[in-house]
């Protein structure tokens, strides 16, 4: 996969894009594990499924699977469909024909964060103060209660542990057959987003105080990065774990984690200054690229090697709410708060 961002012809040729509109905000988007289908979870409870092949007719399967809003959507790590959650307290496994199987039903609660582990086929979900892990066979284990509602969840690289963000820090649980005591990583305040690094060594959170906090998991030592004008609700580690990308800046912002780590170093900032602030950031799954969606609706793709970026979608006063790369990194999906669903084929 090669994106020639330095080539004016690449930048000015509009990529093959499929756009679908809804009158409900897009809350989440994701590709299926095989990359053949893209799904969008909407604020009216529907999940729209589209073929990732932009040349195919846009025959969207749309099913009102949740009673309220869809809060999260991921590719099913144990199949070719999706897993969705909503403010109706249901966690669902969705097949490609739009039919849904209920994994969990916690009436009166919201299930708002999901994480998937491809190799083991496990799904993690936050339900209030608890974290649930559903294994490939559908068996559910519960972890918690945490000091507050879980606001971020992620798997370790090997899928043997999960990390949950809450008030006062992060708790790391071993989820395999051997159960170790939970490991607390402490930092005062409310942690609102969490991502475990792709090499398993670091856990990063965004805090209520517009900072990010990063722990070295093995040593339990930590660091704090400040200077954001807004909460950092989106974090993404590069495929090689050398960079942590963060939202809430007008340009791509990456903290260096290669070698001795980012202590005492400024973040690398690059690319064209966009309209507004980045709300969602997503590192490419295999290469040195990164996608950023802005609160103005602008969408950019950047290259950390050349430090260039290109605009894929102009601003239009609707905020980008979600971004997802296909597993091979050939396609990018984006959703907005006014109901736009975009699928972009980046191969030229």
């Amino acid at each position: 996969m090669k994106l020639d961002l330095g080539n004016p012809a690449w930048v000015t040729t509009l990529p093959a894009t499929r756009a679908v509109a809804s009158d409900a905000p897009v809350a989440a988007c994701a590709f299926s594990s095989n990359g053949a289908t893209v799904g969008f979870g909407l604020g009216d409870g529907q999940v729209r499924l589209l073929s990732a092949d932009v040349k195919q007719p846009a025959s969207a399967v749309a099913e009102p699977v949740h009673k309220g809003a869809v809060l999260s959507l991921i590719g099913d790590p144990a199949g070719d469909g999706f897993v969705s959650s909503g403010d109706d307290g249901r966690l669902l496994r969705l097949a490609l024909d739009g039919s849904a199987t209920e994994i969990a039903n916690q009436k009166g609660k919201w299930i708002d964060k999901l994480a998937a582990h491809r190799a083991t086929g496990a799904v993690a979900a936050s339900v209030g103060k608890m974290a649930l892990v559903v294994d490939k066979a559908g068996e559910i284990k519960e972890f918690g209660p945490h000091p507050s509602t879980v606001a971020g969840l992620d798997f370790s690289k090997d899928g043997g542990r999960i990390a949950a963000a809450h008030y006062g820090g992060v708790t790391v649980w071993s989820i395999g057959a051997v159960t170790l005591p939970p490991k607390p990583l402490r930092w005062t305040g409310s942690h609102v987003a969490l991502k475990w690094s792709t090499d398993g060594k670091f856990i990063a959170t965004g805090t209520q105080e517009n900072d990010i906090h990063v722990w070295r998991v093995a040593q339990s030592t930590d660091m704090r990065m400040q200077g954001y004008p807004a909460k950092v609700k989106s974090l993404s580690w590069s495929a090689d774990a050398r960079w942590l990308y963060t939202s809430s800046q007008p340009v791509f912002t990456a903290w260096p984690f290669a070698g001795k780590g980012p202590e005492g170093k400024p973040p690398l900032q690059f690319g064209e200054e966009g309209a507004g602030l980045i709300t969602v950031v997503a590192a490419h799954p295999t290469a040195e690229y990164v996608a950023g969606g802005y609160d103005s609706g602008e969408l950019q793709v950047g290259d950390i090697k050349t430090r260039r970026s290109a605009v894929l979608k102009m601003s239009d006063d609707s905020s980008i709410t979600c971004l997802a790369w296909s597993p091979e990194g050939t396609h990018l999906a984006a959703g907005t708060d006014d109901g736009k669903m975009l699928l972009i084929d980046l191969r030229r």
Partner: protein
Amino acid sequence: MAQAQVPVTVLTGYLGAGKTTLLNRILSEQHGKKYAVIVNEFGELGVDNDLVVNADEEVFEMNNGCICCTVRGDLIRIIEGLMKRKEKFDGILVETTGLADPGPVAQTFFTDDDVKAATRLDAIVTVVDAKHFLGQLEQGSEALQQIAFADVIVLNKLDLVDATDLAKVEAKIKAINPYARVHKTEKSKVELDAILDKGAFDLNRILVFEPDFLEHGHDHNHEEEVKSLSITSDRAVDPDKFQKWMGALLQIKGGDIFRSKGILAIDGAPKRYVYQGVHMMMDAGWGTPWKKDEKRASKLVFIGRDLDGDNLKRGFEDCLK
């Protein structure tokens, strides 16, 4: 997508005062309006509405060194989640637990940028059980705080008290917070326009909401632990000195000052300067212009615990030209 901020009404009050009855009354009488209702998990009665969100009151301290900067993280999360829904709301009603301190709820609307962009705090409505109120004051600080924070007080269960006891309750409420509008009711029966869309936190409506706000106030409740205090002056205010004084005051005494409001006649400025705050958090801006022949006067109001009237008065006088 630019949309109007959704008004949020906070319903507070001691256990059994009639909060849920009031909530159900709002929902059944407001025909054609859509509300999202956020209730605590241990609610006494069922709430009849399409969208009821159960909240676990999750209060946390901001990690900024300010001990009184406590906010409700669950509200931040729920409001963010509600904005993902397709249908829009005419309002959000938040019912707190009977023992809740209204401070963290109010401060949530001053602190979080996403919450501020999507919603505005309209008013804090406190339901009071006329029969049990005086006893509840003895049991802890919650009943006291709920009165001190209130913009509107629904003095409920009038049928259960005689005139003498009612007079005592009313006097006590006035002694703590004379600025709240009191509506006397049975079974939480109150006109909805008395509690909804009050704009109590709207700087432009501080004057509208309290027409007697600029009348001369006096500090006559020396015996109360929690009370209100007002300071007035006809002399112009030096804005730099005022800012320094108020900043330092809130830094030191912010934990004890529950609510503060003020209208200032700034030296040489054509408009009123208005502000209002909850504990250390404050919101300020220019209000309506002074009329040509209008007497320019400033007034500050504090509601809080252990307020030192003489000290505050001296501090403010040092800010005058």
